[in-house]
């Protein structure tokens, strides 16, 4: 623990660790020092000069080294001639800080007067008005009237797009540099900067496309004026009109805590609508940041029950070959009757965007009828995560020197940007990062060791690491042995084994179900063998493709490799939050009777016999379990739309019609049942999930100037589950089934293997409705090595016919020398049917002439 230092701030005695800045020490003592450029998450720069305070230091006698005393015995304190910046000055023993004197007040007024000379004072039309640090501090400390002649103000551009997502108002900018520093220090996307100097200083972007960063939206939260606004929210509403609802981002397994800002508005027909997504502080999950997907991709939830969107509004039952609207009673009766008849012939297929409560009810219903459940996913290993997942209390913020992080088969920058951000910061604190991948990814920049393997050898690479550590070498196939001979891999393995804490994140790049199951097992073996399980900051994390896949595993759902056959042979197929027919036309042949429970009329829903419309997660409550196995609550952001029900309620009501004991009214009561029946969730309830503790830095209170407009978390930090290993269960090693197939065996006649990759912004159902993002989403494409392209005579950008799993689709050719030869990278959810590594045929599409 750092040495403690005691000082006095405005008469209040404060004890803080050595090295703390005065501004933070004051904050901890409940004293606000006004700031613009300082931000507790970034290095101080002392630019805005707003935080000026008087600082006195005890006088030390040079001869004796003792503090000189006044006549009354108190230490003699010497104040400097000038005001000093509280944001750049570290505390020292016996320091006396005065922030409430007339001198300091005058200094603050001076600085505010300067800032306001160039400010347009357009608060009445400014998006920041109402939550603006400049506005608030001017009210608190500013001069009452202007001495600067209005006509002498500098006129500058007010609508400068820095990209499609973020707009700059140059007149409002006060040159605090928070955005520039965020992009370079925190996001490491230094794509904006200062141009010119003096009063002409302006923020510019120098990337193509403009402001090319997945974290750009955060700059609008920390901007202390209305200079940076999002294209999504600007001129959308005034902050004081907004209600807020705590929620969890549903776009990836990180589980970022967010707040939906909503308002009831005329232009939406008097309905309550979401106006924007703001980060909500959870220092163990997302700190005070979110990625741009989380911020902008929420639009898929809109229009529930209004008929103004693609959302389903009422139950549909197929009559005379057509889907016809019916009442809920009728639809549920039809479904219940069919389920009864099907009995064990019922197959329930659920997607990972459902809440724990939905999944629990689905499992209860299906098991109650003797049917089978399946998880619709392309990634496996959730059972292993439940055993050797990260220990309770795991927090990337606690990882630094002594921690080793291994990322395998995942491009984290694309798949879970906030984990990327936090791992980068852990490395900056001294953590050791190993990135194992088949191609270079952005995270490798921070890696101490890079392990390169050919696609198909993901598990082999991890086993090779393990093998290189062990004297007794299990008889492993030759590919493993070959990898194990690589000195870089051996060094990485040694470093991982020797670290105090070891964490593994595995993903699904280049993998399908079998491959990811093998990889998860290999990772589990490495963790078990190196004793990196059952403790905080140790264990396994799955980089799932959807927000609650871990929850689905925990509720008992498992993917199945024979899904297509099972679907065909099921008597009744109940598809919830999944669209297999949309993803792959060959899955369109369902069994005898198909029930689809959905937000949209998906391709699968179009084939259904009954379609049950449900509420978006913003219209109800529930819980998700993150990749770090943190169970977190989300709350309704907008009222329940008429005519729609929550998934768990639909399932519950079907169950009740069948005489099963299911909860159909309150999500909170479903959680109580989960807690009583699922060991890992024992003791959980919605009250516990809503518990909070004080977090540092303090954000989101009255003083938005300090931390920005991120919301304070008063609705729950969630509960991280203990994995079996932490609860004392024995976790034996198991040797994975080896995909001994090499490339040549899997590849097509042309020798090309398709490897799936994951993109942050894809054409999936929960992204595409956000039209703002379209400019950042390319046309369907595949990526291949220029050498392969040369052989096939494919120029860059050429339109290709890509045949995968028997389906031919058009896609553009992206040439990328980082793609290994013989491999075609196929992004998931981009219109091409890819589920795992598969042979692929590509040829130039014939130009159709009229």
């Amino acid at each position: 623990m750092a040495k403690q230092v005691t000082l006095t701030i405005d008469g209040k005695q404060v004890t803080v660790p050595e090295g703390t800045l005065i501004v933070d020490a004051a904050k901890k003592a409940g004293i606000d020092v006004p700031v613009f450029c300082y931000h507790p998450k970034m290095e101080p720069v002392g630019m805005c000069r707003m935080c000026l305070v008087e600082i006195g230091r005890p006088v030390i006698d040079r001869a004796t080294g003792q503090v000189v005393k006044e006549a009354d015995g108190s230490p003699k304190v010497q104040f400097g001639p000038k005001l000093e910046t509280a944001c750049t000055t570290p505390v020292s023993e016996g320091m006396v800080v005065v922030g409430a004197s007339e001198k300091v007040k005058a200094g603050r007024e001076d600085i505010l007067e300067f800032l306001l000379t160039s400010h347009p004072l357009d608060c009445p039309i400014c998006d920041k008005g109402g939550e603006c640090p400049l506005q608030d501090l001017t009210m608190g400390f500013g001069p009452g009237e202007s001495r600067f002649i209005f006509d002498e103000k500098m006129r500058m551009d007010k609508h400068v797009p820095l990209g499609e997502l973020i707009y700059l108002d140059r007149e409002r900018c006060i040159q605090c540099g928070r955005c520039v520093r965020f992009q370079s220090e925190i996001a490491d996307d230094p794509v904006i900067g200062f141009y010119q100097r003096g009063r002409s200083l302006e923020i510019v972007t120098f990337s193509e496309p403009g402001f090319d960063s997945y974290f750009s939206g955060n700059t609008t939260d920390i901007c202390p004026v209305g200079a940076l606004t999002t294209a999504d929210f600007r001129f959308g509403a005034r902050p004081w009109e907004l209600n807020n609802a705590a929620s969890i981002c549903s776009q990836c397994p990180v589980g970022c805590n967010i707040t939906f800002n909503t308002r009831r508005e005329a232009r939406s027909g008097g309905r309550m609508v979401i106006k924007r997504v703001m980060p909500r502080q959870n220092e163990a999950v997302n700190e005070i940041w979110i990625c741009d997907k989380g911020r902008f991709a929420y639009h898929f939830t809109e229009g529930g029950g209004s008929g103004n969107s693609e959302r389903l509004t009422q139950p549909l039952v197929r009559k005379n070959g057509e889907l016809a609207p019916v009442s809920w009673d009728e639809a549920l009766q039809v479904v219940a009757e069919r389920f009864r008849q099907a009995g064990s012939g019922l197959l329930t297929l659920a997607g990972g965007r459902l809440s724990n409560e939905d999944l629990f009810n689905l499992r209860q219903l299906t098991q109650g009828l003797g049917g089978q459940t399946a998880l619709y996913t392309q990634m496996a290993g959730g059972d292993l995560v439940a055993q050797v997942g990260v220990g309770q209390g795991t927090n990337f913020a606690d990882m630094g020197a002594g921690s080793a992080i291994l990322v395998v088969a995942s491009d984290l920058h694309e798949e879970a940007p906030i984990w990327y951000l936090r791992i980068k910061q852990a490395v900056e604190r001294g953590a050791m990062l190993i990135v194992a991948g088949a191609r270079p990814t952005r995270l490798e920049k921070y890696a101490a060791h890079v392990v390169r393997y050919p696609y198909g050898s993901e598990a082999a690479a991890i086993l090779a690491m393990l093998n290189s550590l062990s004297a007794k070498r299990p008889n492993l196939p030759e590919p493993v042995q070959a990898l194990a001979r690589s000195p870089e891999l051996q060094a990485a393995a040694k470093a991982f084994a020797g670290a105090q804490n070891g964490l593994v994140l595995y993903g699904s790049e280049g993998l399908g179900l079998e491959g990811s199951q093998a990889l998860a097992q290999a990772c589990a073996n490495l963790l078990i063998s190196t004793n990196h399980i059952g403790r905080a900051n140790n264990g396994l994390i799955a980089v799932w493709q959807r927000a609650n896949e871990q929850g689905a595993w925990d509720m008992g759902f498992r993917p199945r490799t024979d899904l297509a056959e099972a679907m065909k042979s099921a008597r009744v197929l109940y598809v919830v939050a999944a669209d297999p027919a949309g993803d792959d036309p060959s899955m369109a042949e369902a069994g005898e009777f198909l029930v689809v429970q959905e937000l949209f009329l998906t391709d699968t829903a179009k084939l259904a016999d009954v379609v049950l419309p449900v509420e978006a997660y913003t219209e109800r409550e529930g819980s998700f379990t993150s990749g770090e196995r943190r169970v977190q609550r989300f709350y309704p952001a907008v009222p329940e739309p008429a005519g729609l029900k929550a998934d768990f309620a639909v399932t519950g009501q079907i169950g009740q019609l069948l005489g099963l004991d299911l909860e159909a009214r309150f999500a909170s009561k479903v959680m109580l049942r989960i807690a009583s029946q699922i060991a890992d969730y024992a003791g959980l309830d919605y009250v516990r999930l809503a518990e909070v503790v004080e977090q540092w830095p303090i954000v989101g209170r009255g003083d938005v100037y300090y931390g920005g407009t991120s919301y304070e978390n008063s609705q729950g930090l969630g509960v991280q589950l203990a994995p079996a290993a932490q609860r004392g269960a024995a976790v034996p090693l198991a040797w994975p089934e080896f995909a001994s197939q090499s490339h040549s065996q899997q590849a097509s006649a042309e020798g090309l293997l398709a490897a799936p990759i994951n993109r942050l912004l894809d054409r999936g159902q929960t992204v595409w409705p956000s039209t703002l993002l379209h400019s950042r989403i390319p046309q369907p494409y595949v990526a291949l090595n220029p050498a392969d392209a040369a052989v096939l005579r494919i120029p860059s950008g050429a339109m290709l016919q890509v045949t995968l799993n028997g389906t031919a689709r058009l896609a553009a050719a992206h040439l990328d020398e980082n793609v290994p030869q013989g491999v075609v990278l196929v992004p998931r959810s981009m219109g091409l049917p890819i589920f795992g590594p598969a042979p692929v045929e590509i040829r130039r599409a014939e130009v159709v002439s009229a």
Partner: protein
Amino acid sequence: MSEYLLLRHRQIPDIGNLTVYRQNEGFQAFHKAVTSMKPEEVTEVVKASGLRGRGGAGFPTGLKWSFIDKNKWPHYVVANADESEPGTFKDREIMENNPFQFLEGVMLCAYAIQANVAYIYLRGEFWQIAAHLDRKIAELHSAGLLGDNLFGTGYSLRLYTHLGAGAYICGEETAMLESLEGKLGQPRLRPPFPPSFGLYGMPTVVNNVETLTNVPLIIEKGAAWYRGYGTEKSAGVKIFSLSGCVNKPGNYELPLGTTFRELIYEHGGGIPGGRQIKAIMPAGASSSLIVANEQALDTPMDYESVPAVGAQLGSASVIIIDESVDIPWLINKTIHFFKHESCGKCTPCREGSYWMMHLTERIDKGKATWKDVELLKDVATQIRGKCLCALGEFSIEAVLSGIDRFRQDFEARVGAREMIETQP
């Protein structure tokens, strides 16, 4: 001046030729230092000589070198050749005409702090001088005075020139380091100071060209010899760049402690047309205006005496203002310069210089009232003590001293306006 120490080309015209420089004891100090002195001994001699920084701050040079953090390596030397202060043109003459003495000074400093690389940061307009220095540096490499294993001692040193892009602020040492690193030229927070956190975060000594040019002779002839020039606390000689309303403007190398009167009337030939001297700006645009009365003229130009008449010696770019010059006009010109050169990093300087420019412009154009003069004074006072670096702090010196000491000039400007306003 009987003998030049810095502007030696005035006595030895070809000293810019390496052979001639070496014939005149050139590089003997460097050879002596590298082959027979410990690095700390070099620093000690410089410390003992009383040499103070000639860039403006007057900080003891040897003391600065001794602050270098010996626990962090590598070390760097950066020679500040950004010479941007209005009225300063001394470093240019040294580099153009006596380049080897300057380069030897850089090399001695590098040896003293055991730097193997030194940079010479020149203002962008000095591109010809940079090319000139590059040729001289190449000659030193050929002559075995730069490179690896110098004089067989294992010490190696390389020099590089670097051109700025035309910003006054890059003469501020931390902004210069930023610029040298390829970043936007804005000053850093201090502390930490360059001797502990300088170029690329490494311990760095930044010295002005003139300061470094003193060093070879100090090492060669000793600290006591150097102390024979100047005053006790301001030892040595100084190049005074004399400009403005004076018959013979130019660089004058004189011992510190020479009076203004001697510089202006004996060396500078007095005021043109026999006009009356009115004011002196002893440190370029960053200077307060001294009322040029008898007492001021008899003030010795050294680091201690000039403050007594309400200014600083700074880089000793002495600008003479005579009775034909109107002070509001002068202040307006000065503030236009600071507004143009403010880097924009800190609020008071960025906003304050812009505001002051509008006020001085109005005052100078006769479109202001006395209230505007008072406001100008307020704004300048408001800037004082709140800036991130010295540029902002210095930008107000001329304004405040101008209004206080030449009030009648402002009254005259404003009076005209007030008369117009009161006319029917």
